[in-house]
């Protein structure tokens, strides 16, 4: 552990899962039979300002479960939670779980060995991983600059060495500043990355924004020497006092046509790489997502206002951007592969995002804390705990695949109760899947 802190994030619980894995899905086993448990017993007081609409929603298993009957017929025995198949395709990559590891960005916390440890563990899990922007102009491609930690190439190799050949994939971000370093061209033309290209497991992510600071580019704090070194590529400003300099990347200028053409340009230039597009939780996120899918993006990532491992101005952390649940509701039924990130670390929030249309959820801060807790297996344990929890929840909802989840599986507090349609016990089986999105109809 390096003493990384994540205020406002359930850090203690994440670290416990990184140490103990699936055991942390349940209350302590040694208290079984000796203590009574009820709602809220295990909860740690969380600053209510940090909870969003998705936290407030509840998963609501029905009594009647026709899809369980289908599964029962298929299995010739009663289905249990293990029978939930979590395997899916995440932005063009096969993944055993509806989970991927989000970019950590160029923030100092992420740039050290944590990036390498996360790469190894994500590879072992066979889940896709995103490598953050601004690592090349800051840290170099082949060899990292002093103190900048593992290079992109080292992380690509660490992932590829551990990953099963038929699963996962690595997605490399490029921002406006990265365009100067031509990160994508560098990676795509590198013979040592050829295996990933040949096996269809390389992708590029066009990053338009991030959850922690919607409308701004990446921000880090550097010392005066680094500030001088980076001044030709970034805005570096002496606004922090105490010797620290603010290094700002630009957010980049985007219009509908610019997004459409950049996606096409990526597909044209890198025909064998997958194309991902990441948006901040903007009020026009539904329009933006549709634009990207229609231009041919393999995945659209929405980073809710709870997202981001990086460093952001206080006003942005507290007051800017849509919460993740609202982003997902605005998008409605996705036209393509939708990925969701933002304060996800356990199965509940993950399954809620999946029910609202996401194909997979991204682990950002949680992954960083997990590898910080145990560089060898922390992330693997955290993800296995999440997977078990997801299987328990999805099976409780009477579903056995991730894509069988629907917005009907959620209840939003404060929404008027809809009166059930008159019962028709002898009628035909009603397909419980619905196109209705948002649970507020």
């Amino acid at each position, binding site marked *: 552990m390096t003493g990384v802190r994540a205020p406002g994030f359930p850090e203690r619980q994440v670290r416990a899962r990184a140490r103990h894995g699936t055991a942390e899905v349940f209350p302590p086993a040694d208290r079984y039979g000796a203590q009574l448990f009820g709602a809220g017993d295990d909860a740690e007081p969380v600053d209510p300002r940090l909870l969003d609409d998705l936290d407030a929603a509840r998963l609501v298993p029905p009594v009647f479960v026709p899809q369980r009957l289908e599964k029962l017929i298929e299995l010739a025995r009663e289905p249990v939670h293990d029978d939930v198949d979590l395997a899916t395709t995440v932005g063009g990559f096969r993944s055993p779980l509806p989970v991927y590891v989000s970019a950590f960005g160029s923030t100092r916390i992420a740039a050290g060995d944590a990036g390498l440890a996360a790469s190894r563990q994500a590879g072992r899990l066979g889940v896709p991983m995103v490598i953050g922007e601004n690592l090349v102009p800051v840290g170099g491609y082949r060899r990292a600059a002093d103190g900048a930690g593992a290079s992109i190439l080292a992380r690509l190799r660490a992932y590829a060495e551990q990953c099963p050949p038929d699963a996962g994939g690595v997605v490399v971000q*490029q921002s*406006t*500043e990265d*365009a*100067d370093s*031509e990160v*994508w*061209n*560098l990676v*795509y*033309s590198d*013979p040592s990355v*050829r295996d990933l*290209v040949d096996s269809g497991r390389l992708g590029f992510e*066009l990053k338009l924004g991030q959850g922690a600071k919607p409308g701004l580019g990446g921000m880090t704090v550097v010392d005066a020497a680094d500030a001088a070194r980076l001044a030709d590529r970034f805005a570096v400003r002496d606004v922090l006092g105490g010797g620290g300099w603010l290094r700002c990347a630009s957010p*980049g*200028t*985007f219009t509908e*046509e*610019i997004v*459409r*053409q*950049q*996606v*096409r*340009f*990526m*597909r*044209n*230039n*890198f*025909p*064998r790489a997958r194309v991902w597009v990441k948006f901040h939780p903007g009020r026009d996120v539904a329009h933006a997502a549709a634009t990207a899918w229609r*231009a*041919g993006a393999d995945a659209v990532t929405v980073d809710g206002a709870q997202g981001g491992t990086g460093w952001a101005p206080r006003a942005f952390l507290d007051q800017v951007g849509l919460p993740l649940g609202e982003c997902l509701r605005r998008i409605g039924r996705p036209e393509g592969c939708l990925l969701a990130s933002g304060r996800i670390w356990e199965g509940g929030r993950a399954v809620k995002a999946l029910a609202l249309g996401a194909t997979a959820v991204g682990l950002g801060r949680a992954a960083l804390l997990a590898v910080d807790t145990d560089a060898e297996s922390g992330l693997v344990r955290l993800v296995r705990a999440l997977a078990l929890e997801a299987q328990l929840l999805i099976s409780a909802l009477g579903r056995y695949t991730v894509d069988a989840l629907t917005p009907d599986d959620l209840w939003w507090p404060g929404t008027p109760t809809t009166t059930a349609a008159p019962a028709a016990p002898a009628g035909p089986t009603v397909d419980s899947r619905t196109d209705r999105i948002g649970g507020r109809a």
Partner: protein
Amino acid sequence: MHHTDHQPDGPAPRPVPLGEHLAAPTTRAAMAVQQEALYAAREYLRGQGCTELLPPLVGPVTDPGGRGAKALDVDYYGQPYKLMTSAILYKQASLRGFDRLFYIAPNVRVEPPETAGTGRHLVEFHQIDVELAGASRDEAMEVAAGLLTHVVRHVLDTVPDVLAGLGRDPLAFTELLTGKFDTCTHAEAVDRLRGGGHPQSADAEIDWVGEETLSREADRPFFVTDYPKGSRGFYDREDPDRPGVLRNFDLIAHGGYGELVSGSEREADYATIVTRMRESGENPAKYDWYLKLAREGIPTSAGFGMGVQRLVRFLTGLDALWQVSAYPKLPGVVAP
């Protein structure tokens, strides 16, 4: 059908060590053809009123290009400079003093390793690079067709024995020498490829396999026009009447040899150039010198680049592009 089809179905010949390659009779024959081709190209372009300039080798920016090729970085007095992937931006700037100009320009593109097998890519190559102030696409296409026809005729006249020694049948050029080249649009090319079962994207450049397929079906060179925006650099002009369509062209050789020429009318309007840069993911700040000129005013123009090695391969009928370069560097292969 008189032409001899190029047949790359067998195993392509593999590059040999440089010393051996330089001494090979094939290499000597290819250089003899190249010398005549360059002579004829200069003769033709000077006849068109073009001035030959010598191109720059490094600069703060170069052609961002496409298809995943990487520019090589150079430390230039501490500044990050690039080796020219093409001198397109300098060609446009040169129009201020030279209405009609051309280069025989060396280019370096670190192509993705996947292009090593196309037989059509080298990391180091040369272009006959032409730019014509005030010209339309039609005029540029006419000059490109005239250039190719003139070069072929000259080579057939001056080194027929060399072509015979390489087994290149002069009848392969019969239809070409009539000077009448067909034109189809990118959309029509996509339809033809899809009709033949090839999954060609409508939004992208014709892929390597598709290009070779079209090339093989033809008996003379042909133009493909109207590529979609997103498949080409920001400097290819978007048709003001048809948003999303570029006023550009490729000239594709017949017989499976593929693209010889890429050209276009150019964007000259400052605001349009900045917007197009963003659409292709570029950071306008790094194009500082070029955008300053564009703000002051760059003449409208059209132009093209004809690949010298591709031209010589087409003339000689050799299997792979490396055979017609004295110092070949294949994508993904570290070579002297």
